[in-house]
């Protein structure tokens, strides 16, 4: 009888040590999921990668793709999303997430191609992302049919961006240069008020000093102040033109920033797949 008991305990120990170790494949997967849900993506990736290939289900491949996407390694993210089988329930989401990868890679052509290759799937999210990417990067305005893909608040935001793109509130460099013939006015035109006032003040001051010194027969000082006044005057013209260019660049950047913020607020228009609830 004693032998039977020992045999049972021994086999139990054997079974336990094989299956219940913290580093058994099953536990590695559980732990990787835990890390993934803690947003510790780098360590989650390491753990998922310890699993044998035959254990890599579509869910794990998706999580690997998502982890790489989160840490900004878009190429590897694309690789794992691509590995998900066509018939998988997660395939549409994977294609949508790959669209996001191409968006982050600033590659609208690849995004378009990604949609074309998977047109039979439910990838409306990718279409919406492509519309916005094309609008921002290539100035391609969405048609009425395309706008129907968005809800009301999204639609009004996009209409606003279209308006800003079609009729940009740019400042003309020529006007800025012409106005700066009166020192500072060019900069005021580009809404650079403090620089405009400084420019006006300094040019006027040095012109007065030059005039005053010449009047009082201080020729040498007169020339020095004249030189400074001319410098400030020419600088004011050059600065006004540069200010207009800077204003226009800032305007374009502002449109891009606003769009990126809108996308961030709306999870880049890609529906989240939540594994952690």
């Amino acid at each position, binding site marked *: 009888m004693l032998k039977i008991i020992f045999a049972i305990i021994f086999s139990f120990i054997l079974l336990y040590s094989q299956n219940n170790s*913290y580093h058994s494949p099953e536990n590695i997967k559980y*732990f990787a999921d*835990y890390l993934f849900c803690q947003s510790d993506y780098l*360590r989650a990736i390491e753990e998922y990668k310890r699993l044998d290939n035959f254990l890599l289900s579509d869910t794990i491949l998706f999580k690997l793709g998502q982890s790489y996407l989160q840490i900004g390694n878009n190429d590897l993210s694309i690789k794992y999303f691509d590995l998900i089988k066509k018939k998988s329930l997660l395939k549409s989401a994977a294609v949508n997430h790959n669209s996001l990868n191409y968006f982050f890679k600033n590659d609208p052509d690849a995004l378009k191609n990604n949609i074309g290759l998977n047109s039979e799937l439910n990838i409306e999210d990718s279409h919406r992302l492509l519309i916005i990417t094309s609008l921002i990067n290539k100035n391609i305005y969405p048609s009425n049919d395309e706008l129907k893909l968005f809800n009301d608040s999204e639609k009004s935001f996009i209409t606003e961006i279209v308006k800003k793109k079609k009729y940009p509130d740019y400042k003309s460099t020529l006007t800025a240069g012409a106005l700066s013939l009166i020192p500072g006015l060019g900069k005021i035109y580009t809404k650079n008020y403090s620089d405009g006032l400084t420019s006006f003040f300094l040019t006027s001051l040095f012109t007065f000093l030059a005039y005053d010194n010449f009047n009082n027969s201080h020729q040498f000082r007169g020339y020095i102040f004249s030189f400074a006044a001319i410098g400030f005057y020419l600088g004011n013209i050059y600065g006004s033109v540069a200010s207009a260019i800077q204003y226009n660049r800032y305007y374009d950047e502002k449109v891009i920033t606003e769009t990126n913020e809108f996308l961030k607020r709306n999870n880049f228009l890609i529906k989240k797949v939540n594994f952690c609830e």
Partner: protein
Amino acid sequence: MNKLLILLFVITKISLSQFDLLNQKEYADSLYLSQNYFDAIKEYKRLIFFDKENSLTHYSYNQIAKCYKYGGKFEDSYNYFSLSLTVANSYKEVFDSKIEICRLNIIQKKIRNAHRILDELEKDSLFNDFKNQIKFWRAWTFYFEMNFEKAHNLFNELNKKEFSEQAKKLSEESYSLEKAKILSIILPGAGQFYTNNYLSGLGSLAWNLLSGYFTIKAFSNERIFDGIILSNFLWLRFYKGNLENAEKFANQKNEELFNRTLNFLYFNFPEEIP
């Protein structure tokens, strides 16, 4: 017979899981000791994940926080020390976590926060047994506050000879910022001389004398406008630069001294440094 079998089964299961837990802890500790902090954090997290009884959770959180601290990720370290506080099972564990948070504040020179934590611990009667430890970290707080005299006194009270000597050394050898500045106010360049930067001191003195001479000459020749321009854009610029330089040099020298003594203490007493 059946009861005996069930009992044996339960005992074996418990002891095996405990064995696994201790093995895992040992593995994580070995990574921590070999300064492989990235992997150590992962293994401590694994420990937390499988430790259903929470017997090593406080320890693991603390260790993760230390890994982040040594990796210079103070924000993450702070978060994990705070987490360890939430799972503390005894006053000792609460105290340890709070002291670790205090150390984190000291090392980041968040002196007011460090003093506040120590004040709270001091006022709490639960931690009466830890008065000396509180005093020790208070001394370190003064040390990082550059109040070396107070640090020296507290270390002395605790009979921490080496620490007290280093604090005293710093208190004697460090340069006074006020003194450097006042010397430079009275005589441009004197503050730099005080901090042993003779060349810079001479340069400062020469520039101030020259620009001062031009300014005074302009005023004495009734060239008021020239005088104003020279005094504003030349002399005052050199005079202000001289004051700022004196303060900068004193600060630089003090930092050097501070780091040298801190390095000495770190190599000799690594566990007792914030």
